[in-house]
């Protein structure tokens, strides 16, 4: 909201320069977002918070300055004149529902001379960004900016039947507003109507048919209070915004509505001649006063600073309240009607602190008493993230919302329905994601486009699905790998083609770090299921050629994994128990052989373990190879068997026959060919 320095000076003696005033206003809660010098005047642009409609006016800001600087306002005190009955031009005003319009006033002024405004008026309006129209319209705008009360002037002779009816619009009723647009109305919109038709959208914008033009002679000046919610809904529905609606939806005040009508009339009579021909009001003309008690001890308890009760009284008085002592420590405060925001003692404490100065309140450190009931999984998530970073992966964060088509593109099947957004601004906000993988693929494809040879990323985030009649939200970990990992060794550059086994290795390292003892990877149709504690907790897959081409990924495979974190956390065991180190050395025997491709190494290892027990301590795959020396359809393997006993050193004589039976069994059962 804009105000000018010179306009403020109409109401208050300003002894400080504009820059300093801007600082003071900012520190009292009227943040001055810009201060510009223009044509010898200064324009303050103030960000007014939504609880203070009274600040949306020159008078409101001047009042605040009065409280900050301890000065009184200069306000004229005009009184309503009594008119002789023969001078009154009768009009008929009705309000259908007082809830929609608690107060309505119409003032008739006849024989006005519509002309351009005075230069002073024009200049003041233009500095606030308001275009000059003619003296009557300009005066209504001038009073709006000065008092905060929106007014509207009708051409009285164009009001059919000299009637005003405040009512809801009928279905499909139409009006052309002063901006030339035709608007379709309905029962949720409040209108001002004459005998036949709407002549204004109440509180939002006037109609073209009854606007004041150069040919207008008699006017009806409207000043009213409308239901804020109704105005808000109406302008949202119509997609309109106006200075008037902005103020009405924040709440107009009765006393301003009465005063503004009078002030505008005075200006019109002064500058556009004319004569008063009647004033009619409907609704309440006075509000019951509201009283709040404030204990100075309460203020101190909230603020952590004792402010003398005399100072409290003085601050609240300077803000327009009537303040009296109830007891030595308790004040009783009568709230002025323009301060609808003051409802509770705490609101008054804020007012006192604001004017007293937040800067005057000390800084203290409380004794924080932690609540030991609170448990969370954040430390576990941190541990997962740090482990993955240690394994070389980079964390990404992608949007929780995405376009529906992204998931179709990825080809990743999710059985449950998508959770849709009611009011997306664009297609990329259509649905809540059912998987993190689609976003990770997109992110990976983007990085490949930036000439990355190797992309290894992960994300921890929530996925969403419709389960029955509820939205299920669950945290998952997702990993995506792609490309060739090149790294230096002492022997030179190694180029490592990323595979599903790299992904498996990462997950194994993570599970071991988290103390997950029972994990397994099981081949399913198109994916590998990750099984934790005998339950499927996630899956790994390589992206289908179709999906790869959908994301424009060429000549590369993409490996993905997603794991449900709730299930993972259920299997985490961070307790560790020390196992004593072996006291006797083991004997290691390697078996190198070739074997048919389709033999599963899991079965092979299991057979070795069964046969080698109890002397066999461990059997593991030490090396594998495929290539020139290996016939096609076969793979070469080296399995290392470690024999060891806890109580004594084993001898070659004990091991050799056992190891030989292991080898024979493998030949027999799996047809291995020793090399």
């Amino acid at each position, binding site marked *: 909201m804009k105000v000018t320095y010179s306009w403020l000076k109409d109401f208050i003696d300003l002894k400080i320069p504009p820059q300093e005033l801007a600082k003071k206003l900012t520190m009292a809660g009227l943040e001055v977002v810009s201060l510009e010098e223009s044509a010898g005047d200064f324009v303050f642009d103030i960000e007014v918070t939504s609880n*203070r409609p009274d600040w949306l006016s020159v008078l409101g800001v001047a009042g605040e300055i009065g409280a900050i600087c301890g000065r009184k306002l200069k306000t004229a005190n005009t009184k309503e004149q009594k008119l002789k009955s023969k001078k009154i031009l009768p009009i008929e005003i009705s309000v259908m529902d007082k809830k929609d319009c608690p107060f309505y006033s119409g003032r008739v002024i006849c024989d006005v001379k519509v002309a351009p405004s005075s230069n002073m008026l024009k200049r003041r309006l233009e500095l606030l960004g308001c275009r000059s129209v003619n003296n009557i319209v300009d005066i209504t705008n001038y009073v709006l900016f000065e008092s905060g009360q929106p007014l509207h002037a009708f051409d009285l002779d164009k009001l059919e039947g000299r009637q005003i009816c405040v009512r809801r619009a009928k279905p499909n009723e139409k009006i052309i507003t002063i901006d030339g647009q035709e608007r379709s109305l309905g029962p949720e919109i409040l209108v001002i109507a004459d005998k036949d038709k709407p002549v204004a959208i109440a509180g939002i914008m006037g109609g073209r048919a009854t606007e004041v033009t150069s040919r207008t002679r008699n006017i009806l000046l409207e000043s009213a209070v409308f239901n804020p919610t109704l105005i808000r809904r109406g302008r949202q529905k119509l997609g309109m915004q106006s200075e008037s609606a902005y103020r009405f939806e924040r709440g107009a005040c009765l006393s301003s509505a009465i005063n503004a009508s009078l002030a505008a009339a005075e200006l019109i009579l002064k500058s556009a001649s004319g004569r008063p021909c009647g004033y009619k009001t409907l609704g309440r003309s006075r509000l019951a006063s509201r009283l709040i008690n404030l204990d100075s001890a309460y203020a101190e308890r909230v603020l952590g*600073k004792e402010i003398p009760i005399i100072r409290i009284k003085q601050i609240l008085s300077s803000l327009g309240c009537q303040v009296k002592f109830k007891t030595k420590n308790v004040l009783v405060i009568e709230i002025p009607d323009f301060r609808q925001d003051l409802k509770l003692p705490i609101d008054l404490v804020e007012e006192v*602190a604001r004017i007293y100065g937040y800067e005057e309140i000390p*800084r203290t450190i409380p004794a924080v008493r*932690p609540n030991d009931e609170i448990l969370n999984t954040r430390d576990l998530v941190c541990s997962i993230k740090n482990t993955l970073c240690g394994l070389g992966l*980079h*964390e990404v964060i992608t949007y929780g919302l995405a376009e529906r088509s992204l998931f179709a593109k990825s080809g990743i099947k999710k059985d449950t329905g998508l959770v849709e957004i009611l009011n997306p601004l664009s297609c990329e906000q259509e649905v809540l994601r059912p998987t993190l993988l689609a976003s990770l693929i997109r992110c990976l494809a983007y990085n490949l486009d930036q000439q990355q040879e190797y992309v290894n990323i992960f994300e921890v985030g929530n996925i969403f699905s419709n389960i029955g009649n509820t939205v299920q939200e669950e945290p998952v970990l997702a990993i995506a790998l792609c490309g060739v990992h090149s790294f*230096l060794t002492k022997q030179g550059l190694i180029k490592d083609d990323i595979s599903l086994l790299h992904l498996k290795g990462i997950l194994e390292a993570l599970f071991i770090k988290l103390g997950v003892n029972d994990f397994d990877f099981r081949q399913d149709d198109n994916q590998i299921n990750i099984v934790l504690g005998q339950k499927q907790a996630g899956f790994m897959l390589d992206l289908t050629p179709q999906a790869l081409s959908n994301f424009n990924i060429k000549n590369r495979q993409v490996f993905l994994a997603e794991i449900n974190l709730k299930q993972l956390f259920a299997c985490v065991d961070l307790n560790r128990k020390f196992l004593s180190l072996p006291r006797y050395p083991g004997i290691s025997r390697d078996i190198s052989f070739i074997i048919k491709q389709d033999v599963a190494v899991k079965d092979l290892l299991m057979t070795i373990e069964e046969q080698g027990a109890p002397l066999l301590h461990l059997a593991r795959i030490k090396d594998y190879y495929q290539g020139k020396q290996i016939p096609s359809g076969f793979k070469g393997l080296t399995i290392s068997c470690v024999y060891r006993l806890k109580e004594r050193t084993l001898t070659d004589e004990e091991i050799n026959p056992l190891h030989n039976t292991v080898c024979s069994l493998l030949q027999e059962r799996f047809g291995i060919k020793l090399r």
Partner: protein
Amino acid sequence: MDINLIQEKIEHDLAGVVSGQDLEGLRLKYLGRKGLLAELTGAIPDLPIEQRGAFGREVNALKNRLLKAIEEKEKGLKAQDSISEEHHIDIGMPGIAQEMGRLHPITQIIDEICTIFSRMGFSVVEGPEVETEFNNFTGLNIPLEHPSRDAFDTFYLKKYSKLLLRSHTSPVQVRAMKAHKPPLAVIVPGRVYRPDAVDASHLFMFHQIEGFLVDTNITFSDLKGVLELFAKNIFGQDIKMRFRPHFFPFTEPSAEVDISCIICRGKGCSVCGRKGWLEILGSGMIHPNVFKHVGYDPKKYAGFAFGMGVERIAMLKYGINDIRLFFENDLRFLKQF
């Protein structure tokens, strides 16, 4: 002549040998034709006859020891030569190590902030991103149809009329207070959503951190103290702070917190919009109506709450000028943090 002294001298000389050349010099000095040992042997005939035998044996023993020491030294030197030839390293060559991954910069800022508050005794609590209208608005004293809601434009879900995507982390205040009795010191990091058109400073998803402290005796001065401690921890001890009155429906009194611009140090620059101040936080004393909604007695308990945008803090700290970079996830960007 004292044999022991000579032995010491020989050992000292041997220790100083670093090359074959040194070793040859040492050999000549002691074992050469005019060397010390030859001199000693030559002196034997001048000794009294009863000492000659013993002295001769000592000289001989010394000679043998010396020969052996020289031989060992020679071996050592040879081995050293061959090692340093094979293992010659140009230290200008790249070091060899596995590349580490990085945490996302947003995660790093969240961790840093949570750590600061954890040290003060705050616990981390998280809440769901799909929220009820009550927790996001009504429970926080935000009327459903009021201009104060304009600041919280919100995504709603189709098919669920009362569900939405939380537009701030404050609903976790309602959740945590309903679940636990005071004292309560909580910090809440998380994603939030608002229907905003995307540009260099706006996104439809971003991160917030909410914090609140409730006990029987919490004051506005405590709020000031705790937030000052926090801001100095994260932005440096030399920053200035100011608390400006503001309006939030769920706090009263409310304050916006500015720090002196960390770019221009308060002189005014493009980052702070020539103001010299950067707004970093919204805060205030928890509104009595919020306490009523969660079943706390506002006469018995008091508390403060604050909230901040993580992206904004990350952008200020790292000098990032486009918020979209955070979610583009370009590895060249991520690897900088």
